[in-house]
C-alpha cells in the first residue's frame, strides 16, 4: 500500500518499527540482522484496520450464538448459523444440557426474525420446548428485542396483567414471550443485566483481540459507548491493551451526546483532551462519535423521499438539528476528529450541512470528519462530501447480510443497487473505508473486502454491479484509507519506512486470487509492532 514501493521480498524491522521494504541486499545496509524466514511462503500485507466495530461486543461471544449466518469464534472455529426454528431449539437443548446448575439462566444471542419472514414469530412456547424450569433469555441481534421462555417471565414476576406496550401477546391476550424495546426488556431484569454485564467484562475485550488476530486485523476502530470515561473502565482498557499478549491497537471514539447525557460539550471536549494525555501506542483517542439515527433494517434510519419501499417508517432522529452545530464545534475546534453515524440519507444531509458550517466557523481543512455507515449516500452527497473533505465509512457487509432484504423490502431495487457506493466514491474523489460494525456482523476484513468487490447477496443476486471495486481498491479501504480517517495514516496502514511494523500475514495474495475466493483466504495471523501473533485454530 506504499505506491512508491508496492512490492518487496523482504522487510526490515527494528524495535517494532519498519526500517524499509525491498530486496535483502537493499536492506542489509541497516547493519546486523537476524533473518526470520517464518513467512517465506506467506504474503505480508499492512495489518488490516477495522474501520468500525465495537470491541466490548466480544462479550456477546461469551454466550451461545443463534444468528442466521456462520460466525467466527475467538478460538478460531465457527459458530454455525441457525436456519430454522427446529435448529434453534436443538441448539438450545444442547446448551441447556451443558449447564450443571438447574437454576442457572441460559442467555443466547444473535437471533434475527428478519430472516424468518415466512414463519410465525418466535414465542415462549418454542423456548419452553427447551426447558420449562430453566429461565431462557434470547437476545436478538438488533439489541431492541428479546424472546424469553415462561420460566424467565415467572422468575421476574412478569405477568399478563402488566400493561407495558412492548410485551408481546397472543390473540387471547396472554404473553407470548417477546419483549420489544427497553421498557419491556427491562422487566426481565435477570436477563438484561447478564447481557449488559457481559459487555463490561475484561474477557470480552480479550476475546475480541483474539478474533482480530484471526482475521489479520492489527488496529480496530472502536466506535462505541461512553463507559470508557468511567475511571475503572479506562483502567481496565489500559491494562488489557498494555499487555504484550493483547494483539491489537484500538482507536477509541467515545459517544458523548446520546440523549440523556450532558449538553455541556466544552467540558466533554476537554475530557477527551484529558484522555489523550494518557493514550498509548495501543490505545488511542483520535476523536468522537455522534449517532444521528437508527438502522435501515429496523426502519429507524431517516430517509429522504421517497422513503421506505415497504414497511412502516419508524425513522428516529437522535440529535436536535438546531443543537448539532453547538455540540460539534468544541470538538472540531479542539482538533478532534468526528465520526457521525448516519444510516439514512436524510440524516446524512444534516451531517453534511453541519460540517459545512463547522468549516465556516473554524477553517480546519484537514479534519477528515467521517460519515460512518453512509449506506444510502447519493451522488449529490458524494460531490458535496468531496468538496468538504468529508470521508465515508461504508457498511459493505450489509450487501451480504441484508442486501436481499434491502432489495425486496426496505429501500427497493434502485436504492439497494446503489447501497455502499464505493465505485462512485472513487470517481467523485471521496476517501472511504469499509467496515463490519462487529458484533452487528462478524469481524473479518477479507469478508468485508469480498462484499465490496463482488457485491453478492445470499440469493445469488449481484447488488449494483456498477458499484463493484477492485480487490486493490478494497485493500486500500481496509488499510491506509481506514487509517487516514483516524489521522493515523502516518503511523499505520502501509508498509513504509518509519511506520509501525504491523502486518496481516496471509496464505494467499488477495490481489492475485479469484475475487470470489477473497473471503476464503487463510490467515496465518498478524505481526504487531514487530511481534508475531499466530491465529488460533
Amino acid at each position, binding site marked *: 500500500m506504499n505506491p512508491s514501493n508496492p512490492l518487496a521480498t523482504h522487510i526490515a524491522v527494528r524495535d517494532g518499527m519498519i526500517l524499509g521494504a525491498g530486496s535483502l541486499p537493499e536492506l542489509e545496509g541497516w547493519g546486523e540482522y537476524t533473518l526470520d524466514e517464518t513467512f517465506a511462503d506467506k504474503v505480508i500485507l499492512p495489518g488490516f484496520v477495522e474501520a468500525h466495530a465495537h470491541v466490548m461486543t466480544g462479550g456477546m461471544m461469551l454466550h451461545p450464538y443463534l444468528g442466521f449466518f456462520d460466525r467466527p469464534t475467538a478460538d478460531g472455529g465457527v459458530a454455525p448459523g441457525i436456519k430454522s426454528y427446529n435448529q434453534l431449539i436443538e441448539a438450545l437443548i444442547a446448551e441447556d444440557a451443558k449447564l450443571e446448575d438447574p437454576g442457572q439462566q441460559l442467555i443466547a444471542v444473535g437471533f434475527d426474525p428478519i430472516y424468518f419472514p415466512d414463519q410465525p414469530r418466535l414465542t415462549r412456547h418454542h423456548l419452553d420446548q427447551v426447558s420449562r424450569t430453566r429461565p431462557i433469555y434470547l437476545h436478538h441481534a438488533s439489541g431492541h428485542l428479546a424472546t424469553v421462555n415462561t420460566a424467565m417471565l415467572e422468575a421476574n*414476576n412478569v405477568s399478563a396483567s*402488566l*400493561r*407495558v*406496550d*412492548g410485551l408481546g401477546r397472543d390473540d387471547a391476550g396472554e404473553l407470548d414471550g417477546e419483549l420489544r*424495546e*427497553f*421498557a*419491556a426488556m*427491562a*422487566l426481565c431484569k435477570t436477563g438484561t443485566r447478564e447481557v449488559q454485564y457481559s459487555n463490561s467484562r475484561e474477557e470480552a475485550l480479550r476475546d475480541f483481540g483474539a478474533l482480530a488476530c484471526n482475521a489479520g486485523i492489527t488496529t480496530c476502530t472502536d466506535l462505541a459507548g461512553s463507559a470508557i470515561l468511567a475511571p475503572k473502565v479506562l483502567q481496565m482498557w489500559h491494562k488489557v491493551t498494555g499487555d504484550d499478549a493483547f494483539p491489537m491497537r484500538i482507536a477509541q471514539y467515545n459517544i458523548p451526546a446520546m*440523549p*440523556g*447525557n*450532558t*449538553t*455541556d460539550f466544552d467540558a466533554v471536549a476537554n475530557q477527551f483532551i484529558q484522555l489523550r494525555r494518557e493514550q498509548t501506542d495501543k490505545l488511542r483517542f483520535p476523536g468522537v462519535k455522534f449517532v444521528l439515527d437508527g438502522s435501515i433494517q429496523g426502519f429507524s434510519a*431517516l430517509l429522504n423521499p421517497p422513503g421506505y419501499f415497504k414497511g412502516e*417508517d419508524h*425513522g*428516529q*432522529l*437522535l*440529535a*436536535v*438539528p*438546531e*443543537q448539532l452545530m453547538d455540540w460539534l464545534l468544541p470538538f472540531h475546534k479542539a482538533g478532534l476528529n468526528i465520526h457521525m453515524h448516519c444510516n439514512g440519507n*436524510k*440524516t446524512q*444531509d*444534516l451531517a453534511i450541512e453541519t460540517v459545512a458550517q463547522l468549516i465556516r466557523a473554524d477553517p480546519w481543512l484537514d479534519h477528515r470528519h467521517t460519515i460512518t455507515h453512509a449506506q444510502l449516500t447519493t451522488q449529490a452527497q458524494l460531490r458535496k462530501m468531496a468538496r468538504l473533505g468529508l470521508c465515508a465509512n461504508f457498511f459493505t457487509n450489509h450487501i451480504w447480510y441484508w442486501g436481499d432484504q434491502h432489495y425486496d423490502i426496505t429501500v427497493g431495487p434502485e436504492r439497494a443497487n446503489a447501497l455502499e457506493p464505493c465505485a462512485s466514491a472513487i470517481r467523485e474523489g471521496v476517501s472511504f473505508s469499509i467496515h463490519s460494525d462487529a458484533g452487528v456482523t462478524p469481524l473479518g476484513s477479507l469478508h468485508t473486502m469480498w462484499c465490496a468487490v463482488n457485491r453478492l447477496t445470499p440469493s445469488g443476486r449481484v447488488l449494483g454491479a456498477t458499484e463493484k471495486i477492485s480487490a486493490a481498491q478494497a485493500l486500500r479501504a481496509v488499510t491506509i484509507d481506514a487509517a487516514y480517517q483516524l489521522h493515523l495514516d502516518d503511523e499505520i496502514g502501509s508498509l513504509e519506512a518509519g511506520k509501525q511494523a504491523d502486518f496481516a500475514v496471509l496464505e494467499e495474495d488477495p490481489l492475485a486470487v479469484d475475487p470470489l475466493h477473497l473471503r476464503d483466504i487463510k490467515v496465518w495471523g498478524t505481526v504487531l509492532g514487530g511481534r508475531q501473533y499466530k491465529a488460533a485454530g
Partner: protein
Amino acid sequence: MILFTVIGGYLGAGKTTLLNNILQNSQDRRIALLINDFGEINIDAGLIKSQTEAQINLTNGCVCCSLSDGFHEAIEQLASASFPPQHIIVEASGVADIFNLSQYGYSPQMTLDGVVIVADAETVVAKANDKYVAQTVRRQLAAADLIVLNKIDLVTRDKVKDVTKWLTENFPAATIIEAEAGRVPSALLLGIHDKHADPGNLDPGHHAHEQYSTWHFHSGHTVTNNSLTEFVAQLDESVVRAKGFALLEGGTCVQFQLVGSRREISPYPSPAEGISVVAIGLRGVLDLAALDKLADELFPEPG
C-alpha cells in the same frame, strides 16, 4: 405505587420553565425529577438543601436527578430507595421516543400518570413540517395525553386558534391546555392528590388556576362495575383530568383516572368507601350541572 409522568416537547418549547414551576409548587409531594442537564434548571438557592454531582435535594422533599448514568439506572435507584418518591417526572430530551419512554410507567411498582408534551404556539406547526424533525415532533404530539400550548402571550389570538384547530385535528387523543410562560396548575399536570380538592387550594399563589374549575362527587354507597364503566366512558373532552376510587358491589376496590382521552380503571389495594370522584376542566367549559346529572343517574341513592 409511584406515579410516573413524562414531560416532553421539542427544543425551545418551554419544558424547563414548566419544570421549574412544578418544583416551586410541589403540593407537598415528594417529586423526583429526572432531567438531562442540571445546567438548564434554575432552582432558587433557598430551595436547595444539598447537592451532589448526580442529585439535588430540595427543602420541600423533592429531588432532581441527573440522567447521566442512564435512564433505567436512575429509575431503579429511585424505586428501590428506602423512602421512594411519590411521583417520578421525566424530562424527555427534545428528540426522545416519548411513547417507548412512557411505557416505563407500566413497570410493576409504577403507574403511568400522564404524558405531557409542551408545544411552542409560535413554532410547533413549522417544526411539524420541518425536513429533519417533522416525524419526531409529530410522534411526540401523538403520544401526548395533554398538550401544553405554551407562550400564547407571544402570538396573536388568531394564531392560537389556528394552532389549536390544527392540533385538535391531527392529535385528537390529546387535551390542549393553553399556557403563558409554562404556568399550568400542578393538579392538571400531575393529577389530583387531595380527595377533597377545591379550586381554592388547587394551586395557591397561582393565577392560572382561575381558568379552571373542579367538580366533586361522593357517595357512601357501592356502585356496579357497569355503571362505573359507563360513567368513565361518558366523561367528555371538557374534562381534562378526572380521578376517583370506588368500592364495587362484590367488594372489589378500584381506582380510575382520565387524562386527555386516556381512561383507565384498575384494581386498588386500599379499601375505598363508596365512590369519590374529582374532575377538572376549563372554567366555563366544564359543565358541572351535566356531571351532577350523569352521576345522579348512574350512581343513584338507594331507595
